[in-house]
């Protein structure tokens, strides 16, 4: 649906995007995350057609932005991090104004306005001034506005930040519904919990280029492949430690209560083999699994803070071997 190939953008001498490559498939709910100053906003502005790259190509549905900018833009709905509202307009007027800007007016605009305001739950606020709306309502209005020309691609910058838990929940439900309707949705957010709850795909950007991208589960699997294995024991701890110490693939070991955490450098087959031999040796293994990484830990690991995170996680161990 959306493809960025070798996109570069300079602000003077500062390189904001350095050959950014991104491929977002149709119908994906894509989480776009990165630390502050990583180039997220620049990338989003380029995706929406607000900004043009210095080099590289951007295509939506196979169409490059330079071919027909207006048709390109008509395929995208954009919800910025600031609401982007005219406070002196009424909710209905605001919607009809943007409908007219998108080339939809008259009864069609009225019909779309009515439908979308109902969809986001603002149908009883049509005659309210925008400035009288709460933050959550303004965000819903911004979403309704972005959908005014029924775009197949929706780009949202920090959509749930600053919202109360209820509004955030409602907002997430709307996003899920839109995704179920087949829309491709890109969400840029610092709230990694929301991203991991909502998104099917993820891309992590750092210093102007994509560090990792793909299906969320796959990314988590790849990144957590080097996480320590946690072996929960039902007794015979000393025997288990002695056994593990003899294994060449076990690089280090830490113990916390009845759990033994090992850094294992072997293949998945060697991992399975280790478990089998432990059981055959009569060591009572209750569970044997890789430590599950959260999106937050992956983010920290991939954006240059991994060492700090690792250190802090090992601080929690009782003793190290």
């Amino acid at each position, binding site marked *: 649906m959306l493809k960025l190939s070798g996109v570069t953008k300079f602000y003077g001498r500062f390189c904001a995007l350095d050959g950014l490559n991104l491929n977002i498939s149709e119908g994906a709910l894509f989480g776009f995350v990165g630390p502050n100053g990583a180039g997220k906003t620049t990338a989003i*502005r380029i995706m*929406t*057609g*607000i*900004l*043009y*790259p*210095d*080099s590289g190509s951007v295509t939506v549905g196979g169409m490059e932005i*330079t071919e027909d*900018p*207006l048709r390109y*833009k*008509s395929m*995208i*709905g*954009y919800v*910025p991090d*600031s*609401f*982007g*509202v*005219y*406070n002196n307009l009424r909710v209905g007027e605001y919607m009809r104004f*943007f409908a007219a*800007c*998108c*080339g939809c007016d008259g009864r069609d605009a009225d019909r779309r306005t009515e439908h979308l305001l109902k969809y986001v739950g603002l149908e009883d606020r049509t005659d309210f001034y925008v400035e009288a709306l709460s933050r959550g309502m303004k965000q819903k209005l911004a979403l309704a*506005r972005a959908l005014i020309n029924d775009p197949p691609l929706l780009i949202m910058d920090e959509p749930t930040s600053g919202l109360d838990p209820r509004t955030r929940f409602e907002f997430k439900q709307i996003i899920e519904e839109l995704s179920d309707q087949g829309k491709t949705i890109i969400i840029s957010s610092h709230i990694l919990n929301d991203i991991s709850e909502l998104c099917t795909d993820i891309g992590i950007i750092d210093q102007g280029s994509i560090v990792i991208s793909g299906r969320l589960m796959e990314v988590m699997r790849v990144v957590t492949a080097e996480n320590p294995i946690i072996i929960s024991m039902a007794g015979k701890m000393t025997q288990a430690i002695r056994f593990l110490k003899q294994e060449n693939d076990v690089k280090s070991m830490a113990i916390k209560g009845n759990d033994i955490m090992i850094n294992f450098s072997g293949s998945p087959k060697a991992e399975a083999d280790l478990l089998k031999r432990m059981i055959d040796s009569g060591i009572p293994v209750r569970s044997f699994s890789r430590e599950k990484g959260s999106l937050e830990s992956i983010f920290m690991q991939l954006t240059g803070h991994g060492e700090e995170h690792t250190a802090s996680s090992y601080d929690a161990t009782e003793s190290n071997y």
Partner: protein
Amino acid sequence: MLMMVVNAILFVVGLAGSSSIILSMKQNYNMNYGAFLRVYQSVVLLDYLLILFIAPVFTAGSISGERERGTFDLLLTTNLTTTDILLEKLASAVISMSMVAVSGLPALLVPLMFGGVHIQSVIFLLLIMMAEAVLALSIGMFASCIGRTSVRSIAIAYALTAAVTAGPVILAAIIGAFVPAGQNRSVILFAVDPLLPVIAILLDQIGESRELEVLFRLFKGMPDSGFLRHAALISVLTQAGMSFGFIMCALISIMPQKSLIRFRRRKVEKEESSGYNG
């Protein structure tokens, strides 16, 4: 509100001037029609200065205000191009400004209650004033595009308007101080001054067109008779060109066209270089 304030000022000046002439007429039993024309002259110039003062504000906040609200990016994601946005905002400001100018017409006519200038001439002068206001609006629009905030844009707009209005006069005065009488060619720069066409037409209306020559002589300048005869037309055309220039500069200064041009140029350069290599 703005219209009311402008018209109130004009009416006060016009009525006060006319009343004082009528009162002195009652005392002297002497009808001085020229005095009414001078009041008319003052009211027109005041109206024009007010228009020049107000006009930049109408447009100076148009683009920078959108940026501050965060709505400019949203407008760029619609079917509107930056040219559409700019020209439509300019058109809206021209209409608002025209309303202010036209609503001042009755106030301009107050000192003419005993005649002296035909109403068609006054309307013509008003049209010239509105045309001149377009220059101030274009300056405001340019300032709005280059200024990050509305306050900064307004400051830039006033600085540019002041430079265009007072700049040629100051320059001519400085150069005039160092050259002999009749040798100051810089007075031709008055053509860029928005005050010149209105002053020229006004002097012509009240039958004092030779005063324009006196004005040039004051700065030790003596432009040819063709320039003097068509000073208003030359000035209006020059300023129309300047307005166009400011609008073009405003358009170029806004994203994303600026980047698009650069992007396309780089792409063409890249294709050409790869073609040569191939």
